[in-house]
């Protein structure tokens, strides 16, 4: 398979680009909701439009009412989301939760997927238990109780936790905290009693929660996939989510880079356009090359994931790490090359810096993933 978008994918990219630049623009969405101190951090109206466009359920199988598309397609949408800093629950609902639901029972799929496909329902995933991504260690416990389970523990930085209609929770049903096995995934509905959220607004104006599970009673049919055997499914979710976050990072990079290169062609100092200074030209050219490489790695990872390749997991980490490095460079150079105006809230470049910072942490930063590349490579 060639490493570029085929005709159908290029058409999807056009559609997504137009839609996001228009409906999902910084002015219409990010600034709009931020300036109103929105408690969700995104607009449900736009999320409904994601449903109408088919985006919300793009990874859901056709048999379940979705489009049955792959990660390359989801990445196309995410790149435009990144470019426009469009706040939405797409990554947690349409990528992470949708991937988890590939293994869910017919009953669970029937209960939760229609609302996802239509863009009416919002889903979150509760994986991390600290400030750094460490999915290898899961201490939140689900003990057998009657026909079901009793969930106890605390999850941190659950993106969209407070607005979620359902949260996919990774909990330990067997073994010790650091064991790989003994993990089970649960679909926990918003009204589950004993679940409480402590909401936090993050630097990029997105909303997360620290969520406590205080003996939450769950039916046996809340289990997604196999009891005790959830590590593999969790791994697939993480690979999908990391590829998705990496695609969004590439969008952030390209958005910030385009803005910056435009600025170099407008701003005059010393009687010249600042883009004439070689010191800035070289930095912009270096940035371009890093962003191109990151984008290639991300598309490759998506293709491998879609093809079920055994290399997909390694490449997902390569993609997340490389996209993180490139986006970090793009936003730092972006602010610097804008000079004082880059520090103002009125100007958008700073918003890219904030979004990049949050995306960089999500599902593991470049250090986590470089280390994972080393481990998977055998050193």
């Amino acid at each position, binding site marked *: 398979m060639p490493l570029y978008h085929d005709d159908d994918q290029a058409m999807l990219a056009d559609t997504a680009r137009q839609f996001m630049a228009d409906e999902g623009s910084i002015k219409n969405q990010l600034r709009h909701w931020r300036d109103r101190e929105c408690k969700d951090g995104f607009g449900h109206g736009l999320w409904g439009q994601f449903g109408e466009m088919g985006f919300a359920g793009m990874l859901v199988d056709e048999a379940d009412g979705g489009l049955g598309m792959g990660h390359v397609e989801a990445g196309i949408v995410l790149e435009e989301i990144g470019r426009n800093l469009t706040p939405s629950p797409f990554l947690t609902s349409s990528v992470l939760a949708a991937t988890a639901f590939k293994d869910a029972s017919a009953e669970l799929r029937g209960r939760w997927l229609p609302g996802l496909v239509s863009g009416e329902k919002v889903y979150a995933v509760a994986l991390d238990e600290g400030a750094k991504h460490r999915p290898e260690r899961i201490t939140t416990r689900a003990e057998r109780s009657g026909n079901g389970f009793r969930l106890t523990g605390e999850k941190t930085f659950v993106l969209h936790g407070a607005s979620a209609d359902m949260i996919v929770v990774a909990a330990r049903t067997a073994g010790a905290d650091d064991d790989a096995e003994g993990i089970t995934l649960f679909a926990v509905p918003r009204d589950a009693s004993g679940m409480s959220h402590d909401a936090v607004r993050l630097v990029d104006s997105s909303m997360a929660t620290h969520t406590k599970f205080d003996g939450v009673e769950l039916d046996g049919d809340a289990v997604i996939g196999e009891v005790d055997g959830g590590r593999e499914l969790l791994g697939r979710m993480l690979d999908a989510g990391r590829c998705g976050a990496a695609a969004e990072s590439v969008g952030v990079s390209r958005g910030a880079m385009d803005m910056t290169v435009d600025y170099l062609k407008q701003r005059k100092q010393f009687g010249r356009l600042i883009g004439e200074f070689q010191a800035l030209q070289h930095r912009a050219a270096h940035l371009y090359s890093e962003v191109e490489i990151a984008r290639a790695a991300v598309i490759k990872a998506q293709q491998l994931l879609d093809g079920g390749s055994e290399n997909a997991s390694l490449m997902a980490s390569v993609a997340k790490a490389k996209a993180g490095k490139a986006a970090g460079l793009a936003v730092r150079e972006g602010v610097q090359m804008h000079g004082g105006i880059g520090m103002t809230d009125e100007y958008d470049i700073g918003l890219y810096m904030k979004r990049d910072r949050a995306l960089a942490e999500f599902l593991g930063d470049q250090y986590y993933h*470089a280390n994972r590349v080393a481990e998977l490579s055998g*050193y």
Partner: protein
Amino acid sequence: MADSTADLETFRQETRAWLDANCPPEMREPVRDEEDVFWGGRNARFKSDAQRQWFEASVAKGYTVPSWPKEYGGAGLSPAEAKVLREEMARIGARPPLSSFGIWMLGPALLHFGTEEQKRHYLNQIARGEIRWCQGYSEPGSGSDLVSLQTYGEDAGDHWVVNGQKIWTSYADQADWIFCLVRTDKTNKYQGITFMLFDMASEGVSTKPILLISGNSPFCETFFDNVKVPKDQFVGEVNRGWDVAKYLLGHEREMISGAGGGDRTAAIGAALTRAAGKHGDTLDPVLRAELAQFDVDALAYACMGEKFLDEAKVGKAHPAQPNMMKYAGTELNKRRHELFMAAGGSRALEWDSEATGGGKTARGWLRTKANSIEGGTSEVMLNVIAKRILDLPGA
């Protein structure tokens, strides 16, 4: 042409079988030194029977230049087929059967600018490894600012009389012919250069090897003293050689970038850690972290190489993209060799010991410093990206 998925799968199976039958095990070992590379040419000598066998089988099949048309010595493979062949060769670690400036540089330029007669004549020679070419671009006063070159060809009726000096001419002392930039109009900077082809055995051509910091001497000063070049030995148009020169540089940069994969894009952390362990050495955690960061960059760059080649084959790549590839690929390769040295420790310093294959690590490390100079420096690549891709002003 076989481009449907099923046809390509058939082609893959055939290719695998052909490689199995024709690529000897010795030719699947990594290249260890210069002698492992077969460059062809009048004075070519095979290092081993295996090398000869692999070369001859490849020539017969058109696989020294697989995507060139059959009538010029290639196999006429489609982009998708050529990619399959590349992948299958990489899978078994097959060495290129023939390496040459003819394949990487002159060939593509002739395919684009050459007359039918030139293509049949020169391309077949290149494909069969009969003539070894060298590149006469740089001069003592004209490196990055190549277009300022001074070597002059005076019109003498049916031939030019060429006088001047080239420098850094790689393998000039071993080459049979040269493709050479010669000024034929002193009043016109860009439209006063002719892209000439001539025999290095011509009277008046002499070379003087230059010793490099690696201790090797792969390139020369090249002198032209009243060299007669027949008037039909040029590519493109007289005085329009700069167009050919630039087109060729695109291919040269693509080649130096290592976009085609192989050793140049592989991850290195695991192998270096194992190698250190074999000697009872351990790598510091901070060095391990550097290796991990490098591997991320290398594996990502390998994807870029694949993407670039896929796009270039169907005309989707930006025409200036080889400059980006060259910049990124060569900077990465320099970093790779810094890490070889760091992980190798003092053992990597040995200059001529048998254990290090004659100082292979140290010499290789020094050699890579040229990667970001040869074929256009990194700074010049960044200039080109800024100007042609980012469209920045006044660049």
